[in-house]
């Protein structure tokens, strides 16, 4: 025994992982067991017939480092008479720490056990006599096989129902019990034994039975050798027959890619043989038509075996070039469970069925026309096609081949473009949802810029869900669904015609670049530009932003809460001026500024107000004199005096404006005030007011907003022919969208009552 253990240890240390090494280990073990059995036989009563058999995988002549030694002692002696003999064999094995499975039975008992228990039968069908009475042992095997043949219908049915957990396309497959693993090869061997009524060590007998082609057989043998080599290594690493990602990385004798292919070859060959025996074909038509593939995808997960078979056989290559490679392509990533191709097939079937279980996804799906839904399914089929050659950004790499595939599916050029876009962008939603602030408009606008078109949002939503679910359970949950759903909702709004978020973001980017270039020699001002909101940038020229940056820098240097800075330039129309005011933002600031203009005798024709970075508000007013008097230095001095007094709280604007209105406002309102609260914008309530202009109107509106506890995040106003249209983006004091309908209702009522 000591000599055996030494040789075994040496073999495990130096052997190249392979089926040959497994055979060597079996032969080495055969010899020591035979010696032990012959020595122990002296303890048996005279004329005792006995036979020691190796069962199961060991019986078929290959033994892996961690495999059990499955042994059977068949004898005509009683159990008590056999005990010393059996103990002399088993105790040294147990003492050596080997895993031993054993049975001690009479010939009749073993044959009965084979009839009652399928596992006992199958392990006997590949059994082999190691020592003792070979006639007795062989007779047991032959009787078991002959009996199985007699009952072949029920036996084959039982074999066909054998549990085969997992998929041959799992990145961490069970190389023994899992689909495509050693047990699948064994089942084919058992099937051969059952059909011939003779012991078999491999499935070659199925060729004569026309259940297996020579090509299939050779492929099976090659696959079995690869799987055995991989199992040898996983056994030595302590992982049994489960090939973890770490195990796969550490394989030395075979490439994990070849293991994956071996599993697929075995899996599909077994299914083909089962189908031939049962008279049912599991094969998809050799030529896959676009309609048939889409139909299968729409039928859901139940279609996966057919789609996988089509992919593995190469039949799908006509529509998805290289799918026969993708189906076994390993590109392990975080949370990924399947090979690239199997992942794509699963995602495509999910779009056809389960994805719509999500409420928002149902809306996304119902938003798609039939052709768009088909395009989305095709995009799922090919979304990882860019992984075929590796490289960074497989979405970008896959866009062009995805478009070609879409055309093979006979999609229109427009829908083929959609497929290409979806493939290019398929990671955007999942990556952005957890990495950007979904409550910040700029973040959404940047994603909107990346996506570009609203029509992509709904199909991208479906593709993201399907891709994530198909990746694995850790990639999708209610948590992820909530984040992606929020992003989708806001992205859809940002890309709506009324917002055109993609355009805002793109234009803002250009303006920002130009402004930074203009401020090349003033790096201290760069932060103002880089931190400015996209909406602000998009609404101005680079020159204006440079001016604002300098204005804000002067204000920041003063660092007094009531400080402000003004910049006056000529306006776009003769007699008008543009006044930009930078001040530290605070509630009521806009109302105070608007009041100061009215008190100075300036009509506001247009405003653009935003809260910039570092809590600085930048409000730009286009103004003209209320009277026919010309504006000059004294006008701006007066304005600054009013602003200063107002910001310091030394000016009662309400009273002063009322006095001014009594002197100058002689016209009654010409039309009722229109007040509209728009709540669909995800970041602010948009308040639109249309009214006849009058002294202090803007101040009164802004004051009403401030008194209601809300802030003005941005505002625009246009005055024409005595009518004013003011648009305010209202937020709560935390900068979030107000969600108290009562508060908004009260504000609207107060504004409507205002004259």
């Amino acid at each position, binding site marked *: 025994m000591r000599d055996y253990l030494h040789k075994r240890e040496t073999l495990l240390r130096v052997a190249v992982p392979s089926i040959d090494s497994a055979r060597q280990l079996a032969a080495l073990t055969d010899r020591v067991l035979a010696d032990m059995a012959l020595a122990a036989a002296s303890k048996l009563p005279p004329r005792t017939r006995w036979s020691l058999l190796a069962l199961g995988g060991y019986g078929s002549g290959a033994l892996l480092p961690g495999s059990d030694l499955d042994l059977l002692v068949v004898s005509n002696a009683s159990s008590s008479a056999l005990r010393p003999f059996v103990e002399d064999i088993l105790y040294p094995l147990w003492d050596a720490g080997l895993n031993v499975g054993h049975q001690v039975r009479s010939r009749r008992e073993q044959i009965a056990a084979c009839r009652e228990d399928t596992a006992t039968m199958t392990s006997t069908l590949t059994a082999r006599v190691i020592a003792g009475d070979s006639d007795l042992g062989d007779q047991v095997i032959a009787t078991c096989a002959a009996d199985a043949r007699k009952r072949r219908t029920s036996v084959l049915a039982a074999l066909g129902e054998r549990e085969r957990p997992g998929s041959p396309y799992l990145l961490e497959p069970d190389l023994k019990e899992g689909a495509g693993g050693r047990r699948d090869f064994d089942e084919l061997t058992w099937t051969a034994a059952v059909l011939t009524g003779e012991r078999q060590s491999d499935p070659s007998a199925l060729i004569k039975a026309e259940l297996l082609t020579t090509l299939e057989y050779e492929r099976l043998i090659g696959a079995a050798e690869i799987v055995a080599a991989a199992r040898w290594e996983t056994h030595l690493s302590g992982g049994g027959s489960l090939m973890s990602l770490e195990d796969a990385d550490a394989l030395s004798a075979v490439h994990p890619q070849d293991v994956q292919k071996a599993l697929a070859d075995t899996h599909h060959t077994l299914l083909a043989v089962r189908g031939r025996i049962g008279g049912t074909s599991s094969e998809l038509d050799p030529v896959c038509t676009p309609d048939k593939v889409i139909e299968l995808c729409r039928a859901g997960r139940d279609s996966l075996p057919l789609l996988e078979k089509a992919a593995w056989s190469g039949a799908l290559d006509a529509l998805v070039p290289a799918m026969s490679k993708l189906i076994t392509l390993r590109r392990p990533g975080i949370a990924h469970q399947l090979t690239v191709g199997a992942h794509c097939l699963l995602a495509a079937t999910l779009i056809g069925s389960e994805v719509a279980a999500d409420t928002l996804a149902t809306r996304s799906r119902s938003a798609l026309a039939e052709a768009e839904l088909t395009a989305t399914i095709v995009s799922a089929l090919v979304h990882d096609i860019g992984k075929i050659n590796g490289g960074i950004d497989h979405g970008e790499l896959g866009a062009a081949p995805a478009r070609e595939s879409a055309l093979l599916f006979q999609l229109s050029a427009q829908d083929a473009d959609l497929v290409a876009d979806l493939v290019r962008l398929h990671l955007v939603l999942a990556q952005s949802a957890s990495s950007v602030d979904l409550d910040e408009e700029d973040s959404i606008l940047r994603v909107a810029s990346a996506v570009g078109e609203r029509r992509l949002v709904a199909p991208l939503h479906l593709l993201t869900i399907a891709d994530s679910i198909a990746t694995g359970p850790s990639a999708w949950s209610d948590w992820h669904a909530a984040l992606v759903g*929020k992003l989708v909702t806001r992205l859809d709004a940002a890309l709506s015609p009324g917002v055109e978020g993609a355009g805002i973001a793109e234009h803002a980017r250009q303006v920002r670049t130009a402004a930074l270039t203009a401020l090349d020699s003033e790096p201290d001002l760069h932060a103002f530009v880089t931190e400015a909101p996209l909406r602000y940038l998009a609404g101005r020229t680079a020159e204006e932003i440079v001016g604002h940056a300098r204005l804000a820098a002067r204000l920041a240097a003063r660092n007094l809460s009531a400080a402000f800075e003004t910049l006056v330039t000529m306006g776009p129309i003769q007699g008008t001026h543009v006044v930009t005011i930078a001040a530290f933002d605070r509630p009521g600031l806009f109302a105070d500024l608007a009041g100061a203009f009215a008190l100075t005798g300036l009509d506001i024709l247009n405003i653009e107000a935003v809260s910039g970075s570092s809590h600085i508000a930048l409000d730009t007013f286009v103004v003209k004199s209320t009277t026919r008097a010309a504006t000059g230095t004294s006008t701006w001095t007066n304005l600054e005096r009013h602003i200063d007094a107002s910001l310091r709280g030394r000016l009662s604007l309400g009273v002063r404006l009322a006095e001014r209105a009594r002197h100058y406002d002689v016209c009654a309102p010409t039309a009722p005030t229109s007040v509209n609260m728009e709540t669909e914008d995800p970041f602010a309530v948009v308040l639109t007011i249309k009214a006849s202009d009058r002294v202090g109107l803007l101040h009164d509106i802004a004051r009403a907003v401030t008194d209601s506890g809300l802030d003005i995040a941005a505002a625009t106003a246009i005055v024409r022919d005595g009518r004013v249209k003011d648009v305010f983006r209202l937020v709560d004091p935390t900068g979030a969208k107000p969600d108290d309908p009562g508060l908004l209702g009260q504000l609207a009522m107060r504004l409507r009552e205002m004259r």
Partner: protein
Amino acid sequence: MKKIEAIIKPHKLEDVKEALNALGITGMTAYEVKGFGRQKGHTEVYRGAEYTVDFRPKVKIEIVVDDALAAKVEDAIIESGRTEKIGDGKVFTYDCEGAVRIRTGERGPDAL
């Protein structure tokens, strides 16, 4: 020892992680959680239909640190997790009675 739990916005996890790394803290447990506080649920509109979101997705992190480091860790989480908007989350600190590194059997702060 103190156990510090923080509820933060999901997109702030990387920032918080970096801030804690800067303090020499390399280990933490993170969970994907959902909940609400003063922020409460809200209504969103998608394709013309309103839907209510009752629970907001957040990330919960747990760290156990030596007493001397607890205040710095709190500050680091607050600074790095802040967006100045509602829903930034909370930090909770508890006394931790013991810690054992299972592999080595080390106990107390040595196990951290």
